[in-house]
């Protein structure tokens, strides 16, 4: 919205001020044609700002422009396993580059010897001998072409193979690293950022290896090859042909940098426009309820007009690129013609022949391509620097929760859990647990109750060693959890989370979590045990029903039951259940869940954090938490008699029962 339009609108509004309903009538006066015309009129004056914009990335950070030697070294180290392929590719590339300049030379020979012979002994050849010679030359020409096809295909394939494997390695490394990082890392790192590392940052590195480094070698190889041939054929003409190249290189560099600036502005503005559209599509109901259609249209148009500015700027410079190359070519031809003519006219036996002239015209054109690309290669390498810096930053993140040196293998737990003066904070000094101590006997079931923020969830996280405690120790079977192998520990501790996370796959694969060693019978048995079998059977494809991302289409209750089956099928020695769901679960499913829970807890050490007090009535012990401390404990009846916090909680929920 321009300033004029705004002023106009403001005046209109002032007229209406004081009325109860402010009308949006001015919105309907928006005209896209006027907006376009306005944008077109001011396009020129916005170019400087557009170019500046190209220097910053999406977060408004200045684009890195420095070439970092250490980063490069670390990146190149990824090529080490593929040294044979790397050197193979480079060898093929060099042979190829050495052959390419032969073709104009062969054309030169064909003209000067057979087609239009100017010197002894070729002037004396018979027509048949000339045709014969020409045929042989062409055969050689074709042969080399075929060879070059193989060489170029070969090195292209090798380079791509190499690039693929390198990014495979890096991607695997990042993924593995993420698997080893502690939970605290995920609490403060958005998933989106990790995805960027594994997608676009890696792409930049692949580009660098495939197009950047190898392309650079190819371009430089070709430039050297061409220069050598040109100088060996005729050094004066070579100098004349090359004279124009620095000028071309500089011109193209300027054009490239303008195009790059415009391109950056394009991608920034395009992503702005796309995210605006995406947001509007997601919130379209709100847009419509608030009558924002026209105004948002105007805003969206404005974003796209900005994008259009950048596009047109890009076209402006891009349109000059090839004509500039062509015109430089014309200058080359002119120079070659001029020098050639002066040579041929002034000397009777000149080294410059028509064949040589033709060859040099072709050489000058062949020189352009690597020259055009060269500056682009540097850009690609530079872009990869920023990405690799971010990737290495992730790979270098310290792993806080690690296996101790002398972690031993073991077969399973008895199941005794002890908190020994545990204090814990997620952040700095914000203590969630204060000096907490308790012991749970093997096979005992314990429930934690209390308000949100009392520290119940933390207890479960600590038993699974998602975090390490700051003070005290969490012990299982008398041994600090930090002394077990993390994997072993968690394999024997079954956990059911509050928001049951389903992976895409099938219902069965969500229960086995992809472990093929678990037979279908076991899956069904577990599902039956936790009351999930019935509803799974009713699904269109039973256990093989596909599950979409995040389990869309399944109700919370169903997801919960699947999560129970998932925990049960692992046959854990210790069971941890987070079941604070206040969510919309219908009565029937709720009963199934409660029944399943009771069965699950039988005979194994269990910690349950439950919202439904009816669920926990049957546990051996109930611990009431408040602000990170244990305030009451005992079984249901003891606590009721005690007439404390628990009793009030109970009364509250008891009231709820009849209507639930």
């Amino acid at each position, binding site marked *: 919205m321009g300033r004029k339009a705004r002023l106009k*609108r*403001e005046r209109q509004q002032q007229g209406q001020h004081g009325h109860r*309903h*402010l*009308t*949006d009538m001015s919105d309907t006066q928006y005209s896209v044609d006027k907006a*376009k015309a306005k944008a077109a009129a001011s396009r020129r004056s916005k170019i400087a700002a557009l170019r500046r914009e190209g220097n910053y990335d999406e977060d408004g950070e200045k684009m890195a422009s420095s070439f970092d030697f250490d980063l490069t070294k670390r990146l190149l180290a990824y090529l080490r396993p593929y040294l044979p392929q790397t050197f193979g590719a480079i060898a093929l590339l060099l042979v190829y580059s050495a052959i390419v300049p032969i073709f104009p030379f062969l*054309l030169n020979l064909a003209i000067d010897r057979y087609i239009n012979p100017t010197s002894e002994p070729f002037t004396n050849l018979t027509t048949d001998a000339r*045709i014969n010679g*020409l045929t042989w030359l062409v055969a050689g*020409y074709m042969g080399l072409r075929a060879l070059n*096809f*193989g060489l170029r295909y070969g090195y*292209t*394939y090798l380079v*791509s193979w190499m690039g*693929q*494997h390198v990014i495979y390695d890096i*991607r695997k490394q990042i*993924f593995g690293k993420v698997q080893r990082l502690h*939970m605290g890392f*995920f609490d403060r790192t958005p*998933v989106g950022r*990790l*995805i960027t590392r594994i997608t676009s940052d890696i792409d930049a590195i692949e580009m660098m290896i495939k197009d950047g480094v190898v392309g650079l070698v190819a371009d430089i190889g070709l430039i050297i090859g061409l220069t050598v041939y040109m100088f060996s054929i005729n050094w004066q003409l070579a100098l004349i042909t090359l004279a124009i190249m620095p000028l071309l290189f500089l011109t193209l560099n300027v054009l490239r940098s303008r195009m790059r600036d415009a391109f950056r502005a394009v991608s920034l503005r395009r992503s702005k*426009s*796309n995210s605006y*559209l995406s947001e*509007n599509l*997601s919130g*379209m*109901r709100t847009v419509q309820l*608030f*009558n*924002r*259609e026209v*105004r948002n*249209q105007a805003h969206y148009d404005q974003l796209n007009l900005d994008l*259009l500015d950048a596009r047109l700027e890009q*076209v402006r410079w891009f349109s000059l690129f090839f*004509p*500039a190359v*062509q015109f430089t070519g*014309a*200058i080359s*031809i*002119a120079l070659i013609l*001029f020098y050639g*003519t002066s040579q041929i*006219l002034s000397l009777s036996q000149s080294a410059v022949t028509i064949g040589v002239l033709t060859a040099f015209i072709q050489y000058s054109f062949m020189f352009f391509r690597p020259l055009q690309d060269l500056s682009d290669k540097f850009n690609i390498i530079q872009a990869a620097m920023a990405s690799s810096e971010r990737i290495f930053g992730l790979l270098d993140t310290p792993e806080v929760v690690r296996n101790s040196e002398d972690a031993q293998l073991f077969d399973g737990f008895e199941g005794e859990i002890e908190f020994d003066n545990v204090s814990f904070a997620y952040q700095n000094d914000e203590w969630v647990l204060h000096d907490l101590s308790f012991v749970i006997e093997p096979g005992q079931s314990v429930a934690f109750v209390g308000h949100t923020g009392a520290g119940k969830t933390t207890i479960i996280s600590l038993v699974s060693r998602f975090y390490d405690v700051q003070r005290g120790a969490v012990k299982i079977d008398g041994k600090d959890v930090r002394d077990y192998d993390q994997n072993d*520990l*968690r*394999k024997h*501790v079954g956990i059911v989370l509050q928001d049951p996370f389903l992976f895409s796959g099938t219902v069965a694969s969500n229960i086995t979590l992809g*472990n093929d060693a678990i037979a279908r019978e076991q899956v069904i048995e577990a599902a039956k045990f936790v009351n999930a079998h019935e509803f799974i059977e009713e699904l269109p494809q039973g256990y093989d029903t596909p599950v979409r991302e*995040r389990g869309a289409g399944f109700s919370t209750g169903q997801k919960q039951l699947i999560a129970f089956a998932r925990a049960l099928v692992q046959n854990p020695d210790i069971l941890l259940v987070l079941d604070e769901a206040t969510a*919309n679960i219908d009565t029937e499913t709720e009963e199934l869940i409660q029944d399943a829970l009771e069965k699950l807890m039988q005979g194994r050490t269990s910690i349950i954090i439950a919202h439904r007090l009816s669920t926990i009535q049957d546990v051996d012990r109930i611990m009431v938490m408040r602000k990170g401390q244990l305030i009451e404990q005992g079984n249901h009846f003891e606590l009721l008699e005690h007439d404390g*916090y628990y009793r*009030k909680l109970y*009364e509250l929920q008891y009231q709820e029962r009849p209507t639930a």
Partner: protein
Amino acid sequence: MRQTMQDLFQYVKRYPRRFYRGITFLVISSITTTFAPRVVGAAIDSLSSGTMTMQRVWFYIFGVLAIIGTAGWAMVMVRRTILNASWEIEFDLRHDLFQHFSNLSGTYYDNHRIGDLMTRLTADLNSVRMMVGVGIFMGVNTLLMILFTLAQMATLSIGLTLLTLLIIPVITLTFFYLLRIIHRRYERVQEQLSSVSAMAQENFSGIRVVKGFAIEDREMRTFRALNDEFIRRNLSLTRVDGPLFPLMEVLFGSAISLLLLVGGRYVIGAGGDLTIGGFVAFVLLFEGIQWPVIAMGWIGNVVQRGITSWGRLKEIFDEKPDIADSDMTNYNLTDIHGEIEFRHVSLYIDGMTLLDDVSFRIDAGTNLGIAGRTGAGKTLIVNLLTRLVEPSSGQILIDGRDIRSYPLEVLRRHIGLVPQEPFLFSDTIAENIAYGIPERGDKDAMLEHARDIAKLVQLDGDVIDFPAGYDTSLGERGVTLSGGQRQRTAMARAIIRDPSILILDDALSAVDTQTEANILEGLREVAQDRTTLVVAHRVSAFQHSQHIIVLEHGRIIEEGSHANLIARDGWYADMNRRQQLEEALEAA
């Protein structure tokens, strides 16, 4: 195909001047370009026959420079006319799409995943733009180039020209098919890449399960398997796109070989008469159409993809909004006072009865409470009133008139809705609050106004603690609001519009009781002369409601004032008791 061309021509014809000019420049550029080799050829002939002098060489030099200069200038103009027009057309397409999207109703958005929609849209817009811009420009360019080059060639040697005519289709078709295979394999690579990122995304989001069940190794294996497939597909792509340029070299190498062989014979004098200059000119002409010949194969693909994409965009354009103004609409209605009546309203969706014969009536300026369990149909009443949904039977009246007689724009302007999970935009807090009021030139006044309302809903205290106060951005690049803050922002957003009907759809579920009481007190001042609908789970939210209805399974099971309902000792009274206990507990 014809339909697509007709549809798209609607866009092309908005820029007649650019396309005419562009095509004129194309003709200039291709004619001149094909003359350059002739000049070089003539120069060589002149050298060969000994007629060249140092004066004459200048003629050739300027000839080459002038011709290529003109061709280059024309090419610059071509791109700046036709390519620019194609970007303008993309702008127009985006504009039209947005306008269309703004008119589609909620059900469309319920049935489409926005992520998928966006991916498809961006890809399709690009393909269509490519067809309209690059397709036209390159298509005309290559045709003209080939035509003029052939004409030039024919004046040099008929035999060699016929040979060229044989070679061109072979090369073009080879590239057309190769590029098509490449594109298909490229799409398969992209598909696999999205599987890889989807798997990573899932793993990262579900990291608690992954770690909790110690399945990191298995996840690593799955990830590796996906990546193996990714490499396999990539290499299969490389196998077809790797040979692209080598193949080009070898095909054109063969063509040049043939020209050398046949053309050489002509020059030598066996079977034809061609000068050496003519021969060189011919070779240069042939090299000049290398790209156009390949480009034809490429354009074929661009057009194919463009047509498919336009088909998909057309599907979107053909989508009709299911709730819109109709012939029932009376455009003279511009005001709403706020009397609301539901007459035997029922709603059935997919054979399920969601609302069953709901009837009630409230006067303008009164406060109606709506209570009931989750899924009882409370939000449906709100959606019916804002016309996000239409009733299956029965009638809804506002100020005694059927709701459908109000223009949608008028209806929505007079209703302020605060949903339970409000959608806020990634803009500043001030802009979010002022979302529904007309833009003002005076930023400070707007801010002042927004702040007044924010104070009313107890939001101001939170906002001033943010890094940039009311100018703090929300969303990815800004702060993340808590549930309660979001609700209060949404409430401010609704109140600032000064609506006749204010609807709070469980809008205080995420704020504590004390804040709730303060907000309700504040609301009482501004709500005096407007109709207020309060949907809530807490009795405390109904303290200002004159009338309360209780829904269960889509039916009204109890209604009356707070006191009435307590006296009835039914569902409502039960809820009241429970909540009093809860309060006692909080206090404990």
